[in-house]
Structures are given as C-alpha cells and as structure tokens.
C-alpha cells in the first residue's frame, strides 16, 4: 500500500513537472520580432529654429579601416535609394526642406550602416574526454551556429556646432537594428525608419 502511494506520488510529480517544462513559453517566433528602434536627442538644441537639411545620395557601410587605406564601401544603390526615399518622406512630413550640400543647409543627415556576425560555439569537453579514453563511444565534438544583425544609423548634425575635438556633434540619432535575412525587406526597414521619426516629435518644424 505504501509503495503504491509513493509510486502514485512519483508519477504525479514527474508528469506535472514534464507538462510544466513542455509548456514553458518560447518567446519570439519570427526574425522581425527582434527589430528594435532607438532614438536620442541632445538637450537644448532647438530643432524648430531650423528648416533645411542635406543628405548624401548613398549610404556608407562601416567596415574595414579607412585609416589603413581601405576604400569606403557603400550599400547597393538600389537598396540605398529605397532607404533614402523613406527618410526624405519622413523629413518632408515633419516640415523640413531638402537642399543641396552647397546651399548651406541647417543640418546634415548622415546615414550609415553596418552588420555584425555573432558566432555561437558549443563544445562538450566531457564528451571529448570520454571519446579520447573510450574510442568506441560516440561523442560530439561540438557545434557552431551564427547569426548576423544589421544596423541602420541616421544622424542629424549641425555643421556649425562642434565638440572640443573640432568634430561636429550629432544633435539627433536614430538607429534601427534587427536580424539580417537573405534578402532585403523594404517593408521592415521602412517600418523602422517611420518608427524612428514617430518617436521623435521634437523634430517637427511645422
């Protein structure tokens, strides 16, 4: 009778624990779930007093080392055109006027991008140790997985405001970050650009 009770108790505990572990929530299910947008502005800068901006026609890709003589890289023109058009659309909606760089714009909007690859490496030391002593046992030497993330950075710079080192200071920064996929997804990027401006109402001049 006692053994039967203990057996029942053990079955209940094991079953409930297994169900609980199996039902543990798994979190995000799609790459776009991990997209985030960050914006930052400097205190005391009066955006409403400015009206014009200029922006380059390509987007530099931050990679390599220019100081060692590497030529700057740019993201493909077709992709850059779509991104710059979306930025222009948002700036126009906020009352800004786009001018050429030689027309003395109030602000410069400098877009840039980079990607990083994270490598996850798992190595089971103990399986390797057993394998070395008992070669007839199978062992797993480890596995490697990786993922890449991309970041699009937008900075609004007042060329007349410089820091102590003589470099201009970004008065507003917007950054989009997400997991990279095999193909460019305009919808994801446009959504991020729109969000960056949506959470920056202080940029409105109209």
């Amino acid at each position, binding site marked *: 009778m006692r053994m039967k009770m203990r057996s029942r108790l053990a079955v209940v*505990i094991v079953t409930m624990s297994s169900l*609980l572990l199996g039902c543990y929530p798994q979190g*995000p299910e799609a790459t776009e779930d*991990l997209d985030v947008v960050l914006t930052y502005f400097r205190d005391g800068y009066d955006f409403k007093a400015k009206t014009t901006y200029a922006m380059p026609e390509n987007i530099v890709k931050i990679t390599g080392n220019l100081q060692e003589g590497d030529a700057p890289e740019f993201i493909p023109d077709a992709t850059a055109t779509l991104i710059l058009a979306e930025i222009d659309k948002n700036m126009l909606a906020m009352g800004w006027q786009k001018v050429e760089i030689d027309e003395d714009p109030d602000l410069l909007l400098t877009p840039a991008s980079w990607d990083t690859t994270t490598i996850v490496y798992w190595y089971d030391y103990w399986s390797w140790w057993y394998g070395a002593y008992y070669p007839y046992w199978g062992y797993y030497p480890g596995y490697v997985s990786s993922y890449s993330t991309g970041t699009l950075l937008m900075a609004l710079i007042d060329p007349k405001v410089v820091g102590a080192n003589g470099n201009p200071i970004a008065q507003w920064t917007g950054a989009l970050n997400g997991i990279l996929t095999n193909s460019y997804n305009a919808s994801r990027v446009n959504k991020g650009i729109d969000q960056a401006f949506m959470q920056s109402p202080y940029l409105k001049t109209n």
Partner: protein
Amino acid sequence: MGFGTGDLGDFISKPSFRGITIDFRKLVQPNIGVGFEIGWNAFYEAKSSEVYTIGNLSYSGKQWRYNNQFPLLFAVDYYLQPGEKVNPFVGLGIGTMYSLRNTDMGQYTLEQDAWNFALRPEVGVMVDASPGMSLAVTGKYYYGFEAGDLDAQSYFALTFGFVFKKL
C-alpha cells in the same frame, strides 16, 4: 493559477497557468501538520511593440517578459476537521523565495534576480477521494520582501492537487 500583485502584477498583468508545488506535512498533533513546501510558478507576457523612454533616449520594440518564482518554505497547517471527509485548513509558510526576472527585447535580455524572505498564508480544503488519497483546493498568497535586484514580489495562487497520506 497565479495572479501577480504589486511590482510583479505591474510587470506582468496576465495570470499564470504554469506552476507546481510539492508539500509535505507530518501530523505532530491530529489537527496540526508541520513540513515544507517547494514550488515553481512561471509568469509570462509577450508585449506588443511599445516605446520606452528614459530622459532623451527612446527605445521601441516587442518585449517578452518572464518572472519565475521558486518558493522554499517551512510550513505549518491547522486542520479544522481532521478525520472528516471534508477537511478545511489554514496555514502559514515562512522561508525564502527565489525570483528570476527576464526582460527580452531585440537580441538582449535584462536579467534580475533576488532571494526574497517570504511569507505565505494559505486557506484550503481537502476532500477524501479514496483511501489514502484526497483532493485539495488551496488559496495562497506569497509575499517576498524586497531584496537583490527586485522590489517586493507577491502573488495569489489557486492550486488544485492530490494529497497522498501515510507515505
């Protein structure tokens, strides 16, 4: 089932349907049982994309919030009708509760934890189902005092379980 209150309720508003407790009591008198409780309650909520602002910095995206509670308590129960088919009881637990909170956003997680000093009053009823086994329904309130990275963590729990006698 668990229902967060206070700081836990503010962090995760959804009730939890993931939880298990294991209790042991030894009858030191016909109507007093002394023992321990260990448990796990998992609170979870997926938040749709929102903007979070601190000063001049705004950060937007989806969040996945997890709050895991692990109570480890010394427990005493008082049974109002020992030996009867329906046996209500009240009890108190005192001990510690490990709280583990994760806030996942983008590729990062913010992890906070604490070992809280905890109190747990409870009220419940046992109903005999078969010789040596009863069914129990219990209402509990866990309160873990502020500690570590977290404010006080508290929640109500409604539990349904089996009672095995004379192990």
